[in-house]
């Protein structure tokens, strides 16, 4: 959590967002049937589906306004002006580049790329290995310069995959090679590992950490995955190269 004086300044903005959000909820709720017929049922205000959202929206709007008022009373107009000036100055760029913020971006990028890009298209084991190898190595090395370099490399790979899926290349590659997405992911994992190795090979302490990261990144999905797949009978989000290989071994008739 932020310090108290920063918190009050932030409250003005978060309160305003809440206030606007409350108005938006009310505006959406008003569109819901209040007195007209819905599905053959003539509405009255007290059974309308809009009643509860209207109540929630009004409360959010009022509380948001109250928060702004409370924060504004403590901060004052002069301080607020200073904050706005800071927000439009070049200092904001410096703030956004602080190491702690970069760490937040790295985590967000890792999660977003896994959830919205990889998990529904690439074999679960492979995307988990990439997620873990990148996540553990970025943070376990405890070096912000290294983190930045690894993040940029990961971002480049992610952009490549976005383009690859956006241009519908998997459909073109599928007749030529089975599981094209998975093979590409495998190539990306290997290149990421090689790139990371080139960054840390001269530091013995980091070499040890690198080994640990690799071992954990590979073993964890292979411990968790089979529990869900074969013990709890949960099919993986995407079953590709590795899952098919595991199935072959699992259901092999000796």
């Amino acid at each position, binding site marked *: 959590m932020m310090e108290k004086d920063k918190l009050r300044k932030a409250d003005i903005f978060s309160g305003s967002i809440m206030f606007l959000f409350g108005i938006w909820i009310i505006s959406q709720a008003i569109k819901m049937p209040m007195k007209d017929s819905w599905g053959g049922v003539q509405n009255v205000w007290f059974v309308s589906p809009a009643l*509860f959202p209207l109540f929630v929206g009004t409360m959010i709007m009022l509380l948001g306004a109250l928060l702004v008022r409370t924060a504004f009373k403590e901060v004052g107009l002069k301080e607020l002006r200073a904050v706005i000036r800071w927000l439009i100055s070049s200092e904001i760029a410096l703030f956004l580049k602080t190491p702690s913020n970069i760490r937040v971006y790295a985590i967000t990028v890792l999660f977003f790329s896994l959830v919205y890009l990889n998990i529904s298209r690439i074999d679960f084991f492979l995307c988990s290995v990439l997620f873990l190898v990148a996540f553990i190595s970025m*943070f376990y090395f405890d070096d912000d310069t290294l983190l930045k370099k690894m993040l940029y490399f990961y971002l480049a790979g992610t952009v490549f995959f976005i383009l690859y899926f956006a241009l519908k290349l998997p459909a073109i590659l599928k007749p030529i090679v089975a599981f094209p997405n998975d093979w590409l992911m495998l190539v990306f994992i290997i290149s990421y590992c090689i790139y990371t190795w080139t960054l840390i090979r001269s530091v013995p302490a980091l070499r040890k950490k690198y080994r640990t990261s690799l071992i954990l990144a590979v073993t964890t999905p292979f411990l968790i995955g089979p529990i869900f797949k074969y013990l709890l009978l949960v099919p993986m*989000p995407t079953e590709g190269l590795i899952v098919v290989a595991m199935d072959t071994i699992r259901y092999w008739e000796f």
Partner: protein
Amino acid sequence: MMFFDRIWSFFEIVFHLASDPVNLAILFGSVILGIIFGAMPGLTSTLGVALLTALTYGMDTALAMVCLLSIYVGGTYGGSYAAILINIPGTAAAAATALDGYPLACKGEGGRAIGLTTTASAIGTAFSIIFIVSISPLISYFALQFTSFEFFLLAFFGILISGTLTSPDLVIKGWLSGFLGLFLACVGRDMLQFYPRFTFGISELESGVEVVPVLIGAFGIPQIIQVLKDRFQIGETQKLQRILPEIGTIIRNIPAIIRSALIGVGIGAVPGIGEDIAGWVSYGTAKNTSKHPETFGKGELQGVLASETANNACVGGAQIPLLNLGIPGSPPAAMLLGALMLHGVTPGPMITFEHPTFIMEVAAILLLASMAMWVSGMLLAKQVVKVLQIPTQIFMPIIGVLCIIGSYSLGLNIFNLYLMLPVGIVAYFLTEMGYPIAPLVIGVILGPMADENLRRALMVSQGSFMPVFTRPVSLILFIIIIWTIVSQFQFYRKFKTKMADLILRRKTCEAIFDEEIGNKK
């Protein structure tokens, strides 16, 4: 007679559960897992329950409850390890334990402190069972008399009180967080007319927001970001000596333990506030009532006993509103509610009719879990402490994968992940800005109850709010809600101070007047 029947059936269930080796294996496994989760700073018992919910999906309800309640009990207790040995509470519930636990460890009495917390935690949990067994039928009986107005007001009160008591900053933020949760509960087709609300044409949203992915996202993702963003490092662990149960010390402190357990049960029973508040309140009470308050914070055994007994007693206390009213008493209890719904059990006043032995089963599992916790704590503490040496940068990414596979496996729906992540990111920013997350989660859970009951109540009364004032329980709840809101505003505090001044002045005047009359006489 009925009371003795209940006690008899309670012990029958205990023996029945304990006689199954599978139950025992799951019990000990989950308790140990819970202790590890609790001991690791950054991981909480709520997250433990959330992640294990996915694994219990295929189990029968009783076994799933053994698993989830055991991890809850173990997780609440496990937080004391890190609090005592590295001065960083493993969970928020153990924050008060660190105040006296760490100085004890520095004096070379870490083993003694852990022995005491183990026994105190087990007593705390066991004590709370008495209340689950004895009070539950009464609450269920009263709850059966409730109409929709009472249920709406109860749900609303749960969100308000949770927002009031869990807010680390302004109370308004706690309330806002609760209303954001209520908004999330509005998403989907409404249950009375099936009108799609805030679905934006997305078919996956028509059935509403899935509770478990929201809970995993709201508790898991902010935790991962915060720990890694702040470069959280685990400090040097104090040496752990032999762990003894310290029965003598426990017997000498029985009154203090009972008081702490009562505080824990009481706070646990209040909707939405958890073990952390129970720990602090109990610690504060122990300090205020002590003959030597100056020793608190310097390694006072009573301080450790007070917070640990209360936070574990809170586990049982939180089950009382959860099982009888369907209102979770704490964040992990909210997770339990989600798990119960997955298993087809709907907690509330009807639970005693639909599943007559369920409350007894929960109480029996808690008793067994507290015993398993005591045994594991006494025998495995030295081994469990080793997990404190694992760097957070290693286990947080693994927790990330568990959050993802856990959210997905409940319903085998990738959309759950699409929902979990934005909720997690928003929850992170809210946490950073001093908004508590517990009311948001309670809001998501109690939202449908509040919505349906408000409209049903108004349907019955034909749009009149008069039953709120004519029904005694409604009126009491309404007054409490108004008081909860009004008491947070400055004008109320000013008014209270003025009134107190006025009364004081009047009393002083009266005293002077009496004195003067006395002198004249």
